[in-house]
C-alpha cells in the first residue's frame, strides 16, 4: 500500500513537472535556448491564481484568466529578452534568462511581499476514495493528474489537427524550410511562448492549491528541476519530457523515503540526472 501511495504522490509531482517542462522543451526545440526564466511565469501563474480566486471566488475563472494573461506575458518575455539576441552565442541567452529569472523573484518580493499569499478559502481540498480501495487522493491532486493529461492531449491535437499546429511542427523540424513554405516563423514563436507560459501558469495555480501557499521563490526549485528534466528527456522531445518528468517525480518520492538520510530531495533528482547523462549524453530519447 505504501508503494502505491508513493507511486501516486510521485506521479502527481511528475504531472506538475510535466506542465512546467513542456514549455521549456517547446522553447528549446524552437530556439535552442535554455529558458530558465520560464519558472518566473510559473510563479506569476501561482500569484495570479491565488489573487484572482480570492477576488472572484471562482477557481475556474481564475485559472482561465491566469493562463491567458501569463501566456501573453510569456510572449512579451520572448519579444524583450530573446528576440534581440537570437544570433549571439548560446551562453548569452542562457545568462540573460537566468538574470531575468533572478530579477523576477526580487520583483515578486517587492510587489507581493516576502511572506507569500494563500487562498482565503482553499478550493479542492476534499479527499476522494480512489476506486473504493481505501486509497485517498486530494481533489487538487486529481486535478493535477487530469490537467496534465488534458494538456498532453490538447497539445497533440493542436499539433496534428490544426493549421497553426502543423506550421509549428514544421518550424521546429526545419525553420528555414518552413519559412520558405511561407510559414511565418515569428508567429509560430509567439504561439510557442504563449502555450508554454500558459501551461506553466496552470502548474503554478495547481502548486498553490497543493501547498495553499505562493511565495517569491516558489519557482527556483521547479525551474532547475525542469531544466534537468528536458535535458534528461533528450532536449526537444515531448515524449522524453513526459517520461523524464514522471520518472523524476516517482524517483524523488521513493528516494526521499529510502535515501533521505543520505541526500535531500533535490540532490536525489540531480544525482539521477548526472547518472543518466553519463550513460546517455544525449538524454533518454534524444538523438545522438
Amino acid at each position, binding site marked *: 500500500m505504501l508503494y502505491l501511495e508513493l507511486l501516486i504522490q510521485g506521479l502527481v509531482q511528475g504531472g506538475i513537472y510535466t506542465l512546467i517542462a513542456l514549455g521549456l522543451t517547446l522553447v528549446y526545440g524552437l530556439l535552442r535556448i*535554455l529558458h530558465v526564466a520560464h519558472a518566473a511565469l510559473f510563479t506569476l501563474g501561482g500569484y495570479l491564481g491565488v489573487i484572482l480566486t480570492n477576488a472572484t471566488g471562482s477557481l475556474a475563472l481564475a485559472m482561465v484568466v491566469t493562463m491567458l494573461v501569463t501566456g501573453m506575458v510569456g510572449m512579451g518575455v520572448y519579444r524583450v529578452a530573446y528576440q534581440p539576441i537570437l544570433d549571439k*552565442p548560446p*551562453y548569452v541567452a542562457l*545568462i540573460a534568462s537566468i538574470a531575468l529569472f533572478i530579477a523576477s523573484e*526580487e520583483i515578486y518580493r517587492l510587489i507581493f511581499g516576502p511572506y507569500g499569499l494563500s487562498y482565503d478559502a482553499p478550493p479542492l481540498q476534499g479527499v476522494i476514495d480512489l476506486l473504493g480501495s481505501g486509497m485517498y487522493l486530494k481533489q487538487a491532486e486529481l486535478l493535477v493528474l487530469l490537467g496534465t493529461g488534458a494538456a498532453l492531449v490538447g497539445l497533440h491535437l493542436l499539433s496534428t489537427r490544426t493549421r497553426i499546429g502543423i506550421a509549428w511542427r514544421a518550424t521546429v523540424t526545419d525553420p528555414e524550410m518552413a519559412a520558405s513554405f511561407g510559414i511565418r516563423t515569428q508567429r509560430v514563436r509567439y504561439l510557442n511562448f504563449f502555450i508554454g507560459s500558459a501551461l506553466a501558469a496552470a502548474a503554478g495555480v495547481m502548486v498553490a492549491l497543493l501547498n495553499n501557499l505562493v511565495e517569491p521563490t516558489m519557482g527556483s526549485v521547479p525551474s532547475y528541476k525542469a531544466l534537468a528534466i528536458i535535458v534528461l528527456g533528450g532536449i526537444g522531445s515531448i515524449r522524453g519530457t513526459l517520461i523524464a518528468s514522471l520518472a523524476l517525480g516517482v524517483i524523488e518520492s521513493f528516494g526521499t523515503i529510502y535515501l533521505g538520510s543520505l*541526500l535531500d*530531495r*533535490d540532490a536525489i533528482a540531480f544525482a539521477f540526472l548526472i547518472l543518466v547523462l553519463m550513460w546517455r*549524453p544525449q538524454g533518454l530519447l534524444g538523438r545522438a
Partner: protein
Amino acid sequence: MGYEITLATSMCISVVFALSLNLITGFCGQISLGHAAFFGVGAYTAALSSKAGLAFPLDLLAAAAAAAVFGFVVGLSSLRVRHDFLAITTMGFGFLFLGVVRQQDWLGGEMGISAIPGSGLSKLGYLGFAAAVAVAVALFSAYLKRSWLGFSFAAIADDEDTARVVALDVARYKLLAFVLGTAIAGIAGGLYAHHVRFISPDSFGFVESIAVLSMVIVGGIGSVPGVVFAALVLTALPLWFQVIEDYKLLLYSALLFIMMQLCEDGIGGLMRRLTQGRRRTT
C-alpha cells in the same frame, strides 16, 4: 577602519574565485553553473582540517587539493556532455554538493561549521595575504593565457573538433582546466573560511554560482583585467551602499541582463573595442 579591511579582504577573495572560473569558462570555454560547490569544498576542507590542527596556510593547500579532486570528477563529465548539457550537469553537481552537505552531521548539516580557527595573522596581515594570493593568481592567469596552454585552451573553446585535427588531446586539456580552476576555487574557499570563520551550506548555493559567473561575464569572458575589475566592483558595490544590499540581487541580475543585451563580451570586450578604435583613428 576594521570594516574597510573586511571589505577589501572579501574583494580579494572574490578576485581569486572569479579568476578560477575564468580559467575554466573564459579560457577553455567550459561553462559551469555550479562553481560555488568547489569554493564550498575548499571552505569545508580548510575549516575541518584547521580544526583538526593543520596549520594555516597549509590547510589552504589541502583545500586546493580537495577541490581539485572534485573538479577532476566534474571535468570527466565535460568529456561526455557539452554546451547546454554541461551547463545543466554542472548545475546538478552544485545541487548535489549542497544536498550531501546538508545531510551530513560531520559537516555540520544545515547548521554549518562555526568557530573556525583564524589565520593567526592580524586583520591587516590577513588582508595582505589575501591580496598577495589575488595578485599571484592574476599574474598566473595572465601568464597562462599567453602560454601555449592558453593558446590550446582558446582553440578548444573555439572549436573542439578542429582542435583534435591539430593534434590536441582535448580531453586532457579540459581536465587540466577543471583541475587548475577548481584548485584555485578551493584556495578562495579556504581564504573565505578563515575570513568569516563560520560557514554553512547557504553560502555555496546556486545564487553564488551565478554571482561568480556574472563577474566573469560582466568582466568579459577570458579577459583577466576585465574579470578582476568586475569582481572588485561587484563585491564592493552592495557592501558599500547598504541600500543596495537589499536590492543586491536585483542589481546583479539587471546588470547581467543589460550586459547580455548590449555587449555580451563584457568590460574586457568594451576595452578591446575602445583601444582598437583608437588605434584605427590614429
